[in-house]
């Protein structure tokens, strides 16, 4: 995969998780800025997914294609699902859902990198 794109996703997701965690500590519900932030992270995840798909078509997929695609799909839905679940809860616990969703993203990206490099 393209390292720059991967790292952009990882850094953005971690920064977002840290930002949301501060809001949890300060007892803040998930407000609009956190929705916008989630949108930014999701946009990067989308770009990364497109890049990965283009690379798979051009250079061939990693050996464990099914697992890789599974991680790719899960990465795409985790932020929207987290947002959906978070926004109905008007307390710090809603914001804490965003922290969890954002922390899953880097884990998935790292696993995807491992699978990608194993096939290279």
């Amino acid at each position: 995969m393209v390292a720059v794109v991967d790292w952009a996703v990882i850094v953005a997701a971690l920064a977002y998780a840290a930002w949301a965690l501060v809001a949890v500590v300060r007892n803040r519900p998930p407000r609009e800025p956190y929705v916008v932030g989630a949108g930014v992270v999701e946009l990067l995840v989308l770009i990364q997914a497109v890049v990965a798909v283009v690379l798979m078509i051009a250079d061939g997929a990693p050996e464990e294609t099914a697992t890789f695609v599974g991680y790719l799909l899960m990465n795409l839905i985790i932020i929207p699902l987290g947002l959906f679940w978070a926004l109905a809860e008007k307390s710090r616990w809603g914001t804490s859902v965003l922290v969890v969703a954002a922390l899953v993203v880097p884990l998935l990206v790292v696993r995807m990198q491992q699978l990608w490099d194993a096939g290279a």
Partner: protein
Amino acid sequence: MSGASRRASGPGRLLIAVYAVFALSASARAGVQIATSFDEAPVAYLLSAFAAVVYIVATVALARPGATARRVALAAVSVELIGVLTVGTITAFDPGDFPDDTVWSLYGRGYGFIPLVLPVLGLLWLRRTWTTEDRA
């Protein structure tokens, strides 16, 4: 506030979110394992599928209102605890029976031991949100 909505609000919101992550990842993992290499380790892969079902049932039951949902959640979370303790212990002493990892192998070490902590938190949360309505 009813016992039902209490279960899915406050800390329960976070708990159910973590359950959902495990339901998703365990299902995806089991699906891929069974579809691509079932013959290599059928026992481990069937166990993965079983764990996935337990997580899905627990997630949905914890999120839904009502006394029935509470009972289902209690059963699912209990099975989950027994599962992670049993599989964790077996894999710790004799990994030969499970040549490939499941979410419960070595007490969920591959997942930061969250699979071991999650059912305990689930049981505590079910007890804390227990209301008189749930007796019905």
